[in-house]
């Protein structure tokens, strides 16, 4: 089964850490990307670089900033092949954001 692991980070959590810790966390994210079962992923640039697009009455409306209806910031995702939800949960629990005040949302991916 394929799962999307959507990574929501607590704003400022990583920035508040020292350089060495931040580097270690960055490595953790890269290590997870190399694991068997991880078939894809993307890390997103920070929220200040985001642009929001809507189309209303045929007009395209572009605004600066993220679509943020939560405190937490969407920072990236992994695509994971796993046997079941418990396996996916094990991988999700190792994502640094989860222990730094953030949240991982696990959603099954529509295949075919």
């Amino acid at each position, binding site marked *: *089964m394929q*799962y999307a692991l959507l990574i929501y980070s607590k704003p400022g959590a990583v920035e508040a850490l020292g350089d060495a810790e931040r580097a270690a966390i960055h490595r953790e994210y890269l290590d997870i990307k190399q694991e068997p079962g991880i078939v894809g992923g993307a890390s997103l640039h920070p929220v200040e670089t985001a642009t929001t697009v809507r189309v209303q009455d045929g007009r395209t409306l572009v605004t600066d900033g993220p679509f943020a209806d939560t405190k937490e910031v969407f920072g990236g995702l992994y695509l994971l092949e*796993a*046997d*079941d*939800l*418990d396996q*996916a949960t094990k991988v999700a629990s190792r994502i640094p954001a989860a222990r730094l005040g953030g949240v991982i949302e*696990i959603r*099954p991916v529509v295949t075919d």
Partner: protein
Amino acid sequence: MLASLIGHFGDFDLAEEAAAEAFAIATKRWPADGVPDHPAAWLVTTARRRAIDRLRRDRVLAAKLRLLLPENGGAGPGEDDVAERAIPDERLELVFMCCHPALAPDAQVALTLRAVGGLATDEIARAFLVPAETMKRRLTRAKSKIKVAGIPFAVPSGPQLPERLAVVLAVVYLIFNQGYGDHQDTSGLAAEAIRLGRVLAGLLPAEPEVLGLLALMLLHDARRAARFDGQDLVLLPDQDRTRWDWRQIEQARVLLDRALLDPAAVRRGQYVIQAAIASLQAEPRLDWPQIAALYAELADLTDSDVVRLNRAVAIAEAEGPAPALTLVEALELPGYQYWHSTRAELLRRLGRADEARAAYRQALALARTAPERRFLERRIAEA
């Protein structure tokens, strides 16, 4: 049998329909052809064949065949090989799947009653006072989530087991409490919870909290006949003890002893402690200091103000109303009926009648059943 099919196919609806079809075929064929040598195996084999046919029609066969082929070698299961391997009891897997934390609590309860308890959807709806359509949707959504999100049909492994078991026990206890409020248990939920508790105790006989929960439910249930005098609530000290089910109390105590003697238990769990309290409350003379100590242990474990309130009640009996009132007034439970009624009772015992009446009135405003309301009204009149 249903558990075995769900385990095999990972799909509730498919399993249920296939099982129903197998039974229907048996009803038609067995009177004419005779009952097969291994009827259970015949039913499982037939149900599996019906399920496979349905899967072929649904074009999901490719994914499912991965599950089927290693066992069956392609030709379809023979009756003999199923009979030789005893059909595994997969009820534990089913229980843990129904009580998976990825399902909403009300879905866990509904699914457990439907799949493990075998209750009909509208029976469950009636017991929880929701429309049948609502319950049907709840079950459909839950089954869909299991399938789409891949909630596993499995008993959790070692490190996860205690947490996951706690969810299962909470679901069973919730079902018990839903039925227990009604002194007739017209919904039958209290009896159903006890039955589920027995199934769990049979499947996990070495787990002290499983034994503790069953003991607790048996002890509460044993007093059911004496809790009401007609339509009026009777408090524990005033209950007619001859109306208690002593056989059930004895059963519970045997379970409790086994749970308390468990050498592996690092500390006692909440159900074992609650059962110990309930067991002490069945004694002719209540050991209030011991009961208070057990509530203190429970409060440490659960960090619950409701438990602290119960401890205060025990302290009132062991040491008097004044220290108990201090404890009660240190708690923050403004929306909790029993906080107000306990405070009222303590004020009454201290001779502060006006304050007692006011507190009883606050409890009355929060009371949810007629017997409770009548009880509180009588107290207000007597104060």
